[in-house]
């Protein structure tokens, strides 16, 4: 049963490949005249041709080997031909004498490489040399340790490296590496050497055998650190390399809450055992560190998972801390009690025997990782789905109770959908907030599940999830638009005082402006806004009140319109109607005239005033500043900012030189991702502090302030002028659309097409013929009707828009493995 489904898969692959390369000869060496041969070359297609005299012997050892290489090369889209140099047609590729004859590799009709026949001594050498020539850019050949270090440094934070040492070019090991590079060359940097000295210098004395190392450079962000290395312990065969790389791709550590018997990871499919480190809530942090350590030690040998005992439904023995599960099906898991990591490692190593890939009939053709959740929010919500939330701290509202509740008490309502991941993640924060506020707030925290009360949500104008609204006396709900986290929501709730506050005396107004009046709220809002009006300015007051209401939860606003308002307006040099902005952090009070400003303008004025002139940019506040649509002038700083620099920039702001920019700074200590950002701008980590202008909204250019200049007001101004005049070169351009789909989707349309055209396909002479030949030559004896019955198997391997050369190559690579 197993073998038959396997064969179907094999044929399916062949159909795909054959249909693409049906023009090339199949399995027997085509013999052509030079003219004929050059007329068959297709642009972009690679072709290997052996030029020989027409009267040369029909067979030779070389021709036999070449014959054998046809099929493997064809799988990579390379055609093979024998060209007979007849007298009438002389070609410069035709040598004069029999022993001077050579093979030539062409791409289209461009000559890539010529090979003396003695270099192509056997089929392995032929495949290895040809792929090596074709993958010249993908596989870097190096000779010194310095070369290796340079590559390593260049790729830190970007890509991982597959470094291999082979004894000589053209060996079976070399072929295996090249075949792997054909598939994975675009994902990993392949590096190859034949220098024994180089191998020895990285600490490996075994120069007799070929070796492959995986350098984990992608997650190395600090250039001073070395990339971790994992040595592949199996002999270098195509299958083993593939398997090894698959385990390198797998997540280092997986957290599970399921029955260990049910868990399935790529390791099992590769015939590797699983090691579960049993953890519980109390020791979770420590266990995770241990597990990570173990995972590094066992990388390539076993899959390591962290099992949360608390959320597990099946029973595991009280004292066991490790569960060991073999790859073989039906073998029960072992519950172990191990004292230290070394005994764990040795237990695993003594039990591992690498065997052939298990054919899992059901899973064999699944596209890689498409079913794996790559949305971190959805992932965590799913992971925690069995962890009960203390929902009782918030009141659940229904269509019947909603209106009465929000009228009876001031309420915060979270509208969410039970099936939506972001909703459920935010519900967790909302519960945390409820815990924080327990017994201290007069605000009622409530929630409505819109999956149940759809009509209610529609009536409340909720068409997205999640949404938070604040209801006071059941009316004019204010929507919350901040970050979906506890802190920001808390600020929103704390600032809910009924705005604008009516201030009744000059003294009270002064207290309000100094921050005395609402001392406890100052930590949530660094700005207090006071509107000053003469008692008769009714419309202006109404507009201001409307704006204050709108900003409820975001800003503290007050209003003063007593007869003696002139005392205040004189003091702060304001013309009525006016706004006073008190910035508590800076201890400054400024005034803004409000004549003829409508509510919308006032909102705009206050919103802008809430922005700082030179803020520290964080992940949380970045969206607000990006909304200004201006290029960012960012000062990257490792730790807090040098007051000199701050002063220089504030000076420039004051002199209005920075009006077209958003000046800000980024503290790498608080926002470590800044390091990654810098690396993408500069390739290597530049010295700090560093000033950069990023034009995100148009063009995406990045300009760097010369690091050899001091950050002074003058230098900066000069540089900005040059920048404006277009005299500065950008250091990089950010790609416009880097927000691509993480993975392909199922291409149902072509699956349906394939199913519909399945019977017609049989009539298609070219494809059918190829398929039959393929079957015969591969000596596969399965019933042909089985192929027809199983279209889905064929279809599953098709990818969305990924029918390009390399992907096809990958598939053929995979099926080859399965056949080994």
């Amino acid at each position, binding site marked *: 049963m197993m073998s038959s489904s396997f064969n179907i898969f094999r044929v399916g692959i062949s159909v795909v490949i054959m249909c693409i390369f049906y023009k090339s000869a199949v399995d027997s060496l085509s013999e052509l005249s030079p003219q004929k041969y050059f007329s068959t070359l297709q642009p972009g297609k690679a072709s290997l041709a052996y030029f020989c005299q027409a009267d040369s012997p029909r067979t030779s050892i070389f021709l036999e080997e070449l014959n054998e290489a046809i099929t493997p090369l064809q799988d990579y889209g390379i055609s093979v031909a024998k060209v007979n140099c007849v007298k009438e047609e002389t070609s410069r590729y035709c040598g004069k004498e029999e022993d001077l004859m050579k093979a030539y590799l062409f791409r289209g009709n461009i000559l890539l490489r010529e090979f003396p026949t003695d270099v192509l001594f056997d089929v392995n050498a032929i495949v290895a040399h040809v792929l090596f020539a074709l993958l010249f850019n993908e596989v870097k050949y190096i000779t010194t340790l310095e070369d290796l270090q340079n590559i390593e440094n260049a790729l830190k934070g970007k890509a991982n490296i597959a470094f291999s040492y082979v004894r000589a070019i053209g060996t079976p090991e070399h072929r295996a590496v090249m075949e792997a590079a054909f598939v994975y060359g675009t994902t990993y940097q392949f590096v190859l050497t034949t220098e024994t000295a180089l191998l020895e210098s990285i600490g490996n004395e075994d120069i007799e055998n070929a070796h492959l190392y995986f350098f984990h450079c992608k997650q190395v962000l600090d250039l001073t650190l070395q990339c971790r290395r994992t040595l592949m312990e199996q002999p270098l065969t195509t299958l083993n390399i593939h398997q090894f790389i698959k385990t390198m791709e797998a997540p280092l550590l997986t957290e599970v809450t399921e029955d260990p018997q049910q868990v399935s990871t790529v390791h099992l499919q590769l015939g590797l055992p699983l090691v579960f480190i049993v953890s519980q809530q109390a020791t979770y942090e420590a266990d995770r560190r241990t597990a990570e350590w173990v995972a590094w030690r066992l990388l390539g040998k076993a899959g390591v998972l962290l099992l949360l005992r608390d959320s597990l439904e099946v029973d595991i023995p009280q004292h066991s801390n490790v569960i060991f599960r073999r790859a073989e099906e039906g073998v029960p898991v072992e519950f172990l009690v191990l004292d230290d990591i070394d005994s764990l490692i040795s237990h695993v190593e003594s039990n591992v025997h690498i065997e052939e890939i298990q054919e899992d009939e059901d899973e064999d053709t699944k596209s890689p990782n498409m*079913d794996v959740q790559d949305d971190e929010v959805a992932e965590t919500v799913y992971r925690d789905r069995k962890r009960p939330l203390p929902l009782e701290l918030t009141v659940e509202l229904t269509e019947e109770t909603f209106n009465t509740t929000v009228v009876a008490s001031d309420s915060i309502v979270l509208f969410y959908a039970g099936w939506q*991941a972001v909703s459920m993640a935010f519900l967790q924060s909302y519960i945390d907030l409820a815990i924080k506020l327990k017994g201290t707030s007069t605000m009622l925290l409530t929630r409505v599940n819109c999956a149940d009360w759809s009509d209610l949500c529609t009536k409340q104008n909720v068409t997205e999830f999640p949404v938070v609204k604040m209801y006071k006396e059941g009316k004019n709900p204010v929507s919350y638009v901040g970050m979906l986290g506890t802190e920001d929501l808390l600020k929103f709730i704390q600032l809910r005082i009924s705005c604008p506050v009516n201030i009744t005396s000059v003294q009270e107004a002064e207290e309000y402006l100094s921050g005395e009046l609402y001392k406890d709220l100052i930590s949530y809002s660094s700005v207090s806004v006071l509107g000053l009006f003469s008692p008769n300015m009714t419309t202006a007051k109404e507009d201001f009140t409307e704006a204050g209401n709108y900003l409820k939860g975001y800003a503290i606003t007050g209003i003063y319109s007593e007869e003696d308002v002139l005392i205040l307006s004189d003091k702060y040099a304001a013309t009525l109607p006016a706004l006073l902005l008190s910035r508590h952090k800076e201890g400054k009070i400024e005034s803004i005239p409000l004549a003829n400003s409508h509510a919308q303008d006032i909102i705009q004025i206050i919103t802008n005033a809430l922005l700082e002139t030179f803020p520290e940019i*964080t992940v949380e506040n970045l969206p607000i500043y990006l909304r200004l649509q201006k290029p960012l002038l960012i000062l990257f700083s490792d730790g807090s900012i040098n007051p000199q620099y701050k002063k220089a920039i504030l000076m420039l702001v004051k002199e209005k030189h920075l009006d077209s920019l958003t000046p800000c700074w980024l503290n790498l200590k608080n926002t470590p991702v800044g*390091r990654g950002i810098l690396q*993408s701008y500069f390739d290597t980590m530049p010295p700090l502090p560093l000033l950069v202008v990023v034009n995100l909204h148009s063009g995406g250019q990045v300009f760097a302030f010369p690091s050899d200049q001091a950050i002074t007001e003058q230098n900066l101004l000069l540089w900005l002028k040059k920048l404006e005049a277009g005299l500065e070169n950008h250091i990089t351009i950010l790609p416009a659309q880097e927000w691509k789909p*993480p993975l392909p*989707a199922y291409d149902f349309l072509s699956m349906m097409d394939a199913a519909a055209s399945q019977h017609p396909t049989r009539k298609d002479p070219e494809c059918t013929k190829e398929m039959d030949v393929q079957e015969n030559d591969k000596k596969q004896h399965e019933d042909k009707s089985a192929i027809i019955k199983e279209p889905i198997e064929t279809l599953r391997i098709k990818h969305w828009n990924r029918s390009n050369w390399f992907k096809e190559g990958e598939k053929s690579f995979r099926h080859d493995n399965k056949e080994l």
Partner: protein
Amino acid sequence: MRLAAAARLWGPPGLLLTFALHPALCLRPARTAAPPHRDYCVLGAGPAGLQMAYFLQRAGRDYAVFERAPRPGSFFARYPRHRRLISINKRHTGKANAEFNLRHDWNSLLSHDPQLLFRHYSRAYFPDAGDMVRYLGDFADRLRLRVLYNTTIAHVTLDKDRQAWNGHYFILTDQTGQAHRCSVLLVATGLWVPNQVDFPGSEHVEGYESVSVDPKDFEGQNVLILGRGNSAFETAENILGVTNFIHMLSRSRVRLSWATHYVGDLRAINNGLLDTYQLKSLDGLLESDLTDLAVVKDHEGKFHITLKFFLEESNQSADAITLPQDDNDNFAMRVAYDRVIRCLGWKFDFSIFNKSLRLSSSGEFSKKYPLVKASYESKGSRGLFVLGTASHSVDYRKSAGGFIHGFRYTVRAVHRLLEHRHHHVPWPSTEHPISQLTNSIVRRVNEASGLYQMFSVLADVILLKENATAFEYLEEFPMQMLAQLETITGRKAQHGLFVINMEYGRNFSGPDKDVFFYDRSVGHTEDAWQSNFLHPVIYYYRHLPTEQEVRFRPADWALPRPTAIHHIVEDFLTDWTAPVGHILPLRRFLENCLDTDLRSFYAEAMKVGAAPLIITGLAAVTRQK
């Protein structure tokens, strides 16, 4: 039959006559007093007419409903004869979602009043028809719908006028000769004219509309029932226990609704006779074309079945007529019957519409329905819409447009079309940022009732905004009108669109198919396109398809070939909210159509760079909010 022949004979002069009479007819009232004008006239106060009246009333339109009976729903006052409705009244689904619950409520009309749900009118799963009459009466009264009762519209004609919305007015003349002038005519008269087959001896046949419903009247009788629909089986079911035997005769083979998933086919609740037939009792089913038959009454008053052909051969007395069994002594219907009952369904009443309206029948396979476009507008005259059961030609034997639970949504679609055409109110839509795309779809496919009932007829449409940063969501658009979407809705579809439809698997169901075959359901997400049960299908188009593309779409396709298609795998609970099984593949599909990333991220993860994407630019973060 005779009438039709006469009409054909007198065709050309008749036409002349119409022309001659035409000015006279409409000028007369004009001279005396202008006929009262309405923007919208609705014919019939059945479920569809009341449903339309409700929408017109809510929109504040000038309308009137004309009803010949003194109360709404006169069809239900009489039919079904045995009083049991076969539309389900599911009062419990275990869910609070009102929209979702409508998926399993086949009797309620749409309104804002939760009291006007049918479950408040009956506790029965298959409710009594009397409850429907009471419900419709309450619906009209509570919502104060403007219905003119006891007004029989006897004649409808056209009055050309350049000023009119559609270039003509509809002139309705009632039984008193009073004329009513309407800008738009909404015909919701249903199907009420009993279908009759003309064959020798058809005068001996009793009709479903008048046959006794008292089983006592059938004690010990041999009964032949003509027809194979729900009315035929309902009649048989009623007398199954008291007759000697029942034979049922019809042209086509029985179509079981659980095999065809079409609610108009024979419902299991009525199929007791099938059970006894197959369990070797005396009852039986036969297939023959009724038009070839003849019924002959013998001297004892019993009925014999013979062929029309034999009757034409000889012109003899009743007892001497050749019977099939004379040649063929095992002829199935060789016994004499005490009663022959005709249960052949109903057809639309074409007779009141003047020829100038060009309201014709839908063709060979759905003769009983008037011909309409997919927008429910008559092909013959602009401004005339057919609603309710009579509009079923659009999805006959496919979807639920001929039944309350389906046409309550198609009526709403017609109303939305009219609101835009005559009052510049665009098709209602909501606008969202693109980050809500997956949510919007998941929400609708899980709760929307209109999509679910009117699968493959009404579909939701998502219109993308420039650069796909936002989208508009339109609900329940008649999908066959997709090419005309911009003119019908007043919305722009310049930047690509998604269509969300519900579909059964192709070739899954049908009258002769085994719908319980092993392995009939699909579980793997990658096999979702082979799902058999009703499941959501999402079509992606870069450009709005043209009329040509819609008309000449591939056979078996609900819509023209899209740029990409996605099937959400069928679900046993019709709950498509599984994070990995349903939502993840949907997100991947949407991402690949739009060439973007629709994931959400934690800000904490961004701080340390766990989301590698944002390294390439800070811009990424803005996409979060």
